[in-house]
């Protein structure tokens, strides 16, 4: 239903703007906003002669990008969670590193992507060559929300419960696993939802400067060059990229439903 509404809005906007001849905020024509059915049809047609239909090409590229994003997501989530666990135990480390963890996110990731590819690629075993570096970039975008929210979640444990554990002389490990981790789960999952999207963004951005052609990012860059001739192909690619982001998000939400049974208190 939402999809139908979007398609309707798109065509309505097109129709109003072209028939009224409005050029603000931008000129509406077949290039800037191709008809929805042209985008849909682009899936079925081959993008280049002697190639399978665009949809099969894009599916392969999507799987490739999904692999990068999933690997990055896993790596980033583990690193982020570990960072959160380490930081919660030391005020000193928190003060020393937290500003840089926050600061690391202001670095425009695209800018460092080529350097990451140059560093990481030679150190990877053959099967990981190429896409492993992109996964690292995806992980870089993933770890931040997870680390910050894990820290907040671990700190959110009820102080009374903490005192109780202490009176029973519970070890740090017991406190961590029996009390802190369970109380942090709603926070961690709200971070993982953010991270799911971020890992897809990271995988797509990471492909741009690294010259990897077998993923969605490469496809976007490629179709961007032919946009004035074949706009519907770039649009089709973007629709697929959007769908991939939503699929990742839905998977995390489903996992959350299974793991976290109680209602998360208003977590940002």
């Amino acid at each position: 239903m939402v999809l139908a509404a979007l398609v309707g809005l798109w065509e309505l906007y097109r129709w109003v703007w072209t028939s009224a001849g409005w050029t603000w905020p931008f000129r509406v024509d077949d290039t800037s906003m191709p008809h929805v059915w042209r985008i849909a049809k682009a899936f079925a047609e081959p993008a280049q002669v002697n190639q399978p239909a665009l949809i099969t090409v894009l599916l392969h590229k999507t799987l490739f990008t999904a692999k990068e994003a999933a690997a990055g997501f896993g790596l980033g989530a583990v690193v982020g969670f570990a960072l959160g666990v380490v930081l919660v135990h030391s005020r000193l480390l928190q003060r020393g590193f937290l500003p840089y963890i926050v600061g690391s996110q202001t670095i425009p990731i695209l800018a460092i992507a080529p350097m990451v590819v140059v560093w990481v690629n030679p150190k990877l075993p053959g099967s990981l060559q190429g896409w492993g570096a992109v996964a690292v970039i995806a992980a870089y975008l993933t770890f931040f929300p997870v680390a910050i929210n894990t820290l907040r979640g671990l700190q959110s444990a009820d102080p009374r419960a903490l005192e109780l554990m202490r009176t029973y002389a519970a070890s740090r490990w017991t406190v961590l696993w029996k009390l802190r981790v369970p109380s942090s789960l709603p926070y961690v999952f709200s971070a993982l939802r953010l991270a799911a999207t971020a890992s897809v963004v990271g995988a797509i951005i990471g492909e741009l400067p690294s010259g990897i052609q077998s993923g969605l990012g490469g496809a976007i860059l490629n179709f961007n060059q032919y946009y004035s001739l074949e706009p519907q192909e770039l649009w089709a690619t973007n629709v697929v990229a959007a769908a991939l982001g939503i699929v990742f998000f839905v998977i995390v939400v489903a996992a959350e439903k299974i793991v976290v049974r109680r209602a998360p208190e208003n977590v940002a």
Partner: protein
Amino acid sequence: MTSETGPSLGGRAARQAGEWVPALVVFVLVIAAWQGAITAFSIKQFLLPAPGDIVRSCWTDRHSLWPAGWYTFKEALGGFAIGSALGVLGATVIGRFRSLGSALMPVFIAANAVPIIAFAPIANVWFNPLSPHSKMAIAAVLCFLPVLVNTLRGLQSASPRQIELMRSYAASEIEIWRRVRVPTALPFLFTALKVASVLSMIGAVVGEYFGGSFNALGVLIRSDAQILNFERAWAGILVASVLGVALYAAVVLAERLVVRWSPERRVS
């Protein structure tokens, strides 16, 4: 106010300085290790330039780097302002009608999971790639959703008891808005603005990757990386990060000035 200033200004300043000492120590250690590793293992300059060289490049290329940074910063700032304003406006309208909010929320959440960066080339086509407006557009779209969702959540998180109390005093809707809903929403709004400040800078730089005027930072970093002038590329990244941190710090400062109550409820 006067009682809050504490024992003495000097004592407070010293305590605040103490908060930052560990961060400074880490900073110095990392820079020293970086420079040391490069001299010790004679790492090649194209892999990782020495921090000293990067800072020197910041200075020697100041006539190209800083104006480019400023140009990109203006794009990011414009996008940040437009996107955040639209987000707050949207949240205000939707927050007024509860049913509208619950109907649209899933759409916003789904839209939030879309890798919006993939649409940067289309924004370039819509609004002339050489004009700063195309980058403002992509930065604005990036900022819009987090601000909208968080502000909406903030407006809805006012405690029902407070609102009933206001009603029992025959306060008008506007009065309730001004005295209850907006104050509770402000911490949520600032959380979103902090996220948006970082996103806007990334959006502007990434948007420039798909083409932009030659005096823009993203274009500069990309072309420097291509001709293996990594010192200047890193200097450009440094400039982008400094500007991103500056925008973030400005938002934090504004938050300190505006939200003076209940620091523990602040969602960092």
